């Protein structure tokens, strides 16, 4: 484009420069399509939030060996799970030298840095990136999405295909009639603090080498019995600490997320990890955790939904950016196909649907489609069972002269005092069934 020519018609318009949008943009640009990407933040990443773990595999599908130049914090060598009760933690975890070798499995990252870098890659490949611009509406013609309207003067743009990568609260999806109603029991509210802490302290407290990192997923008391989880991830010289719970439950229990994160930070098992640090940043984010049943129609004439906008989050495995990037790439591939066929209807774009359905994205979400509902109906997994595990472990490890056989009886009695044994077995069986 020369200095003074301007076109409002592109092959592809991508709304949102997060992992999903950028992945779609890069995929399309590689095939020589004329792509414009719009971002409401000051720069890509400035408004984007996630727990802070980025997976290598899906990222490499977009940019091979990205880890050699991308701004990353630590590669994760150990994953821990803590089941918290009021004053105890039953812990489990996995640490391996294998995770210490390149190529690494996953990394802790700051989205404000990583997304900026990732979007620059798209710009380097010829994508036009426009920031600080909000897309407010879609332009329809004969029932087909043909363009978008921004909040700027002369702000209409047209394209063969629009990609909505504008997050959980997708305005595009809503305007196109694809998010009929957002229900409070399909959205989780997560808050996160970046907690600065000396590098040496992090490495000592988490028992890691200079480059390695640790994740801790916190269950049970971390959410004060609400359905949700909390986490701690190690960065270079800070920790990401956060907690998320379903909005419906926060409302019902009248607990605010601010109280939740305070209670996580002051939990006796966590407080020592944070000692001497201070809050550098405070972030909040909506996470679409409705699972398989909440996935809207994501492929219509002229429009594809990707990432959070398509409600693609696997909450059980804390995977979001992974699904975002992969869905973005699939959308890109479908758009390339549609361009070679010259058909931008839902039918012409159906490659997207096929790729999604044959991939881990839809298959995983389908596999876990009953988990949200199950846990919502079995809140004892967040309240009673952590306490039972705590009491059992306490008895088990306590040396007090009681024979082991006797101890086992005591433990079992303690449990059955709290919950009938048939109920416990049924919960275990059903719990296993929803995740099997």
């Amino acid at each position, binding site marked *: 484009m020369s200095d003074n020519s*301007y076109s409002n018609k592109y092959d592809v318009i991508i709304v949102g420069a997060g992992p999903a949008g950028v992945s779609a943009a890069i995929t399309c640009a590689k095939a020589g399509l004329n792509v414009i990407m719009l971002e409401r933040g000051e720069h890509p990443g400035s408004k984007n939030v996630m727990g802070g773990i980025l997976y290598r595999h899906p990222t490499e599908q977009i940019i091979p060996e990205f880890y050699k130049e991308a701004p990353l914090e630590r590669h994760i060598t150990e994953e821990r799970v803590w089941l918290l009760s009021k004053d105890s933690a039953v812990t489990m975890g996995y640490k391996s030298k294998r995770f210490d070798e390149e190529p690494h499995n996953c990394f802790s990252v700051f989205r404000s840095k990583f997304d900026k870098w990732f979007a620059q890659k798209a710009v380097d490949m010829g994508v*036009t990136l426009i920031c600080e611009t909000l897309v407010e509406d879609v332009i329809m013609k004969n029932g087909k999405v043909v363009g978008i309207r921004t909040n700027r003067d002369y702000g209409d743009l047209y394209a063969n295909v629009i990609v909505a990568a504008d997050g959980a609260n997708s305005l595009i999806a809503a305007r196109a009639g694809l998010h009929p109603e957002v229900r409070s029991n399909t959205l989780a509210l997560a808050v996160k603090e970046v907690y600065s802490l000396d590098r040496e302290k992090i490495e000592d407290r988490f028992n890691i080498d200079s480059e390695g990192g640790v994740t801790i997923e916190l269950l049970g008391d971390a959410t004060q019995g609400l359905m949700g989880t909390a986490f701690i991830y190690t960065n270079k010289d800070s920790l990401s600490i956060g907690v998320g719970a379903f909005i419906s439950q926060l409302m019902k229990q009248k607990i605010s997320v601010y109280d939740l994160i305070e209670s996580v930070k002051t939990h006796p098992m966590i407080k020592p990890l944070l000692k001497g640090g201070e809050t550098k940043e405070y972030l909040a984010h909506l996470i679409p955790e409705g699972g398989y049943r909440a996935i809207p129609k994501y492929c219509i004439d002229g429009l594809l939904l990707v990432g959070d906008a398509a409600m693609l989050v696997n909450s059980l495995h804390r995977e979001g950016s992974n699904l975002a990037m992969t869905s973005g790439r699939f959308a890109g591939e479908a758009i390339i196909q549609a361009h070679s066929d010259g058909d931008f209807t839902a039918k012409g774009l159906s490659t997207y649907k096929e790729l999604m359905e044959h991939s881990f994205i839809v298959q995983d979400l389908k596999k876990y489609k009953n988990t949200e509902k199950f846990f919502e109906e079995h809140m004892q997994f967040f309240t009673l069972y952590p306490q039972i595990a705590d009491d059992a472990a306490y008895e088990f490890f306590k040396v007090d002269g009681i024979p082991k056989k006797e101890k086992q009886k005591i433990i079992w009695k303690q449990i059955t005092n709290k919950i009938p044994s048939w109920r416990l077995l049924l919960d275990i069986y059903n719990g296993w069934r929803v995740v099997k």
Partner: protein
Amino acid sequence: MHSVVCIKQVPDTTEVRIDPKTNTLMREGVPSIVNPFDMHAVEAALKLRDEYGGKVTVITMGPPQAVEALRRVKTLGVDRTILLSDRAFAGSDTLATSYIITQAVKKIDSEDAVDLVLCGKQAIDGDTAQVGPGIATRLNMPLVTYVIDIDSVDTEKKTITLKRSVENGRTALCVEYPMLMTVLKELNEVRYASLPNMILATNFKAEVWNKDDIGAEMKNMGLDGSPTAVRKIFSPPVRECGEMIPHGIEQPDVAVHNLIEKLSHNKTI
């Protein structure tokens, strides 16, 4: 009318930190912005163009990355952008900088007569407010600083009526142009860029002029042309907080007594 606006790329001082040991600015990772006062100068020039026609040229002096400042104003729809960039400019103080910019304005004027030169009141990093007046002096133009209002332009008589802020109020002036003004934020509200201008700015190319392009002499610029030397940079001492003498309302007698006692104790009275 043809306006030339001089802008400066500055570190976003809301995000600047000072190294506590050396007292120097830590510029690493600090985002750069267009000096906020300068944005209002650009807006003023655009408004005049909207009303009276003509052209807006924006110039900045700095390293190659200062082109980002020009890109920012390009989104507002300015007509021409010029980056003054040369190793020989490095280390210039306000005297040398005003010389370099004057040379550039003269060159622009020779191609396309300049009616107005606009600058921000001062840059938020140096806070000197010297370059604008320096250019006016060198160009032998009337100078009006701290402009808060541009009322009207008479293109027949070549006069401009404006208001400037003074210590205890404002003064209205009618000035012949070509002239130079430095502006305050109150002058206007910077426009929101249109989408076409945003798109055009993504792949624009600024003109780059070096010392030969503007016919600048080595002795007048860089360290040679800069009589100013920085002796020392230091943080002002933190002011100690004052002492509150309590109970002034409930027991004024006691409070006054305590105050007098303290004042006479350290021999203030």
